[in-house]
């Protein structure tokens, strides 16, 4: 792997001068594979499998970031990576191995390694097998505006934000991180999925010089042309200026209105504790005897209605698991919140016969 914005394509070379010489054949390999390239590679990997079932996941991404604070750029970097993971199963004995090298010998080796691990593993009673081919909703989360980003373009976007904070005599600290990548999967039941995507996230905290006023803004898009760092910065500026004279309040009961960003962060924290296994085992707030499903249902249903970025960040299928997108149907039903818990636990629930994907919040 080579980590650098300059290198969209690379050759994995091994030096003969190394003390640990690598005898593998140098393999030309792009970080971002096309659908056809990914399919060919995954087909090759699956051809090595001798397990009862096998699932192969492949991903590649190029990332760039720029960070600033005290109205100055601080650190920045760029990287790219790719990874191939193989999960082999013999009955309910499952083994997973990953690799970052893609020559034929390495590909076969990672399959053998996952099979060895599966044979050594104890039976996993919760293993649900690999999925059959799925029908996916159509969506596109890939935009060339991000795939073609350079350090200069990142610097331009941050410069617009810095100018506003400097002109207002306020202090900005922000971060912009972009990703261009894809995920693909194939399994022994014939399921193949490929999804290229791009995204950029920008967040900024603006403070007054005395630290009494502070404003935060966060934005995320698939398309860089949608990111207006100046407009976002103006919101943070207004919050910082408006909160400088805020008065302290006494603890008590208040009606609280959360902006979308605040609500989403709150929901993220709740979501990751909605673990079906813990609830089944009686050691969760959401356990039937000790919990309050009515509260959770209400919150869940409400949460679905104020996610402005959801259409743009839609994630039509999850190649990592290859499930189709039934979120809308399931989350649209009342009192189904228990069924929208993480996939990892759903298989052990007697009333849940089929896996379903992670919900988007």
């Amino acid at each position, binding site marked *: *792997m*080579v*980590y*650098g914005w*300059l*290198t969209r394509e690379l050759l*994995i*070379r*091994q*030096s003969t*001068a190394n003390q*640990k010489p*690598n005898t593998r054949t140098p393999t030309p390999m792009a970080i971002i594979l096309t659908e056809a390239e990914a399919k060919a590679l995954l087909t090759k990997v699956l051809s090595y499998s001798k397990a009862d079932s096998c699932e192969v996941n492949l991903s590649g991404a190029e990332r760039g*970031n720029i*960070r*600033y*604070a*005290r*109205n*100055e*750029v*601080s*650190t*920045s*970097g*760029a*990287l790219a*990576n790719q*990874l191939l993971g193989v999960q082999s199963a013999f009955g309910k004995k499952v083994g997973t191995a*990953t*690799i*970052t090298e893609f020559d034929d010998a390495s590909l076969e080796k990672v399959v053998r*390694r996952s099979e060895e691990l599966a044979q050594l*593993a*104890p039976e996993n009673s919760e293993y649900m097998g690999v999925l059959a081919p799925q029908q996916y909703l159509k969506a596109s989360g890939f935009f060339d505006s991000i795939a073609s980003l*350079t*350090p200069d373009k990142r*610097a331009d976007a*941050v*410069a617009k934000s810095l100018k506003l904070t400097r002109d207002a005599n306020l*202090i900005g600290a*922000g*971060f912009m*991180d972009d990703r261009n990548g894809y995920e693909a999967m194939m399994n022994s039941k014939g399921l193949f999925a490929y999804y290229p995507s791009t995204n950029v996230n920008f967040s*900024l*905290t603006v*403070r007054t010089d005395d*630290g009494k006023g502070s404003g*935060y803004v966060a934005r995320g898009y698939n398309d860089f042309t949608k990111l207006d760092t100046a407009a976002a910065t103006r919101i943070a500026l207004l919050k910082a200026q408006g909160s400088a004279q805020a008065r302290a309040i006494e603890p008590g*009961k208040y009606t609280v209105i959360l902006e979308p960003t605040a609500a989403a962060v709150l929901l993220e924290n709740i979501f990751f504790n909605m*673990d079906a296994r*813990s609830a089944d*085992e*009686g*050691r*969760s707030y959401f*356990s039937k*005897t*000790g919990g309050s499903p009515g509260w959770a249902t209400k919150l869940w249903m409400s949460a679905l209605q104020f996610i402005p970025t959801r259409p743009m960040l839609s994630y039509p299928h999850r190649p990592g698991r290859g499930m189709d997108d039934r979120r809308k149907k399931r989350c649209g039903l009342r009192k189904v919140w228990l069924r929208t818990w993480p996939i990892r*636990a759903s298989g052990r629930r007697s009333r849940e016969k089929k896996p379903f994907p992670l919900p988007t919040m």
Partner: protein
Amino acid sequence: MGAAGIMMPALPAFSRSVSAEALLEPGLDVAVKKRLADAALNAAKSMGATYADVRIGRYLNQFVLTRENKVQGIINAESFGVGVRVIADGCWGFASVGDARNEAVVAQAAKTAVTIAKANARLLTEPVQLAPQKGFGDVSWKAPIKRNAFEVPIKEKVDLLLSANAAAMQNGANFVNNVLFQINEQKYFASTDGTYADQDIHRIGPNFTVTAVDPQSGKFSTRNSLSSPMGMGYDYLQVNPADKVTGVTTRYNKGYDMLEDITAAAKQAKEKLTAKSVEAGKYDLVLDPSHLWLTIHESVGHPLELDRVLGYEANYAGTSFATLDKWKSKDFNYGSKQVNLIADKTQLYSLGAVGWDDEGVKTKKWDLVRDGTLVNYQAIRDQVHIIGENESQGCCYADNWSSVQFQRMANVSLEAGKTPLSVANMIKDVKKGIYIIGDGSFSIDQQRYNFQFGGQLFYEIKDGQIVGMLKDVAYQANTREFWNSCVAVCDQSDYRLGGAFNDGKGQPAQSSAVSHGSATARFNGVNVINTARKI
């Protein structure tokens, strides 16, 4: 592993799974690493960099995860690559290369870093000011391990964890999650200052959560292990009576008895189900080191990081109430006269100990709070000029070859009391108090000022005697009033380390491991709330 389970340390970026045997293979020879490093440094200089450093890192991890009578997973992972940081046109730039074993690829990363630095230089109004640092030549450092954890057969580790789980189930637990983390960072640093530092860092972290459930009431309680992650090898799991601190429950120093602790944990988790719920109010708190480390971490370690003070973490980890004006005043009472807080990157067996930091500074020990007064911060080479220093304190760190290094917390600890004082004698003088053991959930604001801390075990103290277990306890305070309420610290014989495997900071987020030591300490008149109260 459920919500009541244990947070697993993140694997280093871009890890690949390997066999357990591969974890014992030697990495690149030092001569090869030096050749790669020189290739990067020369490439950076040829592109106009005025400073460059290179980190060649091999990061090895083994996680053994179990619950009840099952092995949930055994993860062996390796991550290898090179990170190059430069200053060009007065601005930082960084790029990294995975699986890089030849000079050309490493040099290309250096050139990329310079290109990024030059692109961003127009966003600076002042160039980076890097404190001078002499070169140390070829040097090395190795963690003081007696038994490399990776050399211990996996079966031995699995047998230990499953035996412990069985002991928990036999003693009343309904569930148990039990994990063992082992980490080895093989890190080679080189810079244009002339330092070539080869370092071998080891950490180990056994950790369990035992859960007891009362199906009738729908209540459940947990008790986490009283172990600590340590900068040690498998020797931490060798039982040694001298490393045990007995009392209301046994605690551990440089040797951890998992079977003993988990047996007690199962009994205590059940006992907690029916323990008395605390009555909110003011109490004198007696805080065991297994608990106090976390309060030190959050209310001292973080606010005295200079990058937070200056606002570099304002958009993510937070800022600090301990602003420069307070330090400049030279009389800011961070705590009482009994409070002496030190930063130390050299402390034996600690998680943060190394010989040289990630920008080539020889590590050291320094005061943060002396006799209660704020006297210093934690700072690195591009910050120290702001506090009038010309030498870094050596606390720069990156969690992976692919991450850019920046200021991270040193081991920050409370010095033990100078006069002899045992825990028993400390408790003897408490009229109305609570003795807290083990760390629990907590909350603290982004300036690290207003906070709330729970724990694992709570014992009510009345008229100098422990009278029984409490539950639903958390204390609330602000940092300054809390440390000013410290009236006594036990002596060195009670001093122990606690620590965090995954301290998060930075964008992109990085984690670091850090220890915090103390002896048992007493804090008077602290506000205690009942966490089960209905609002």
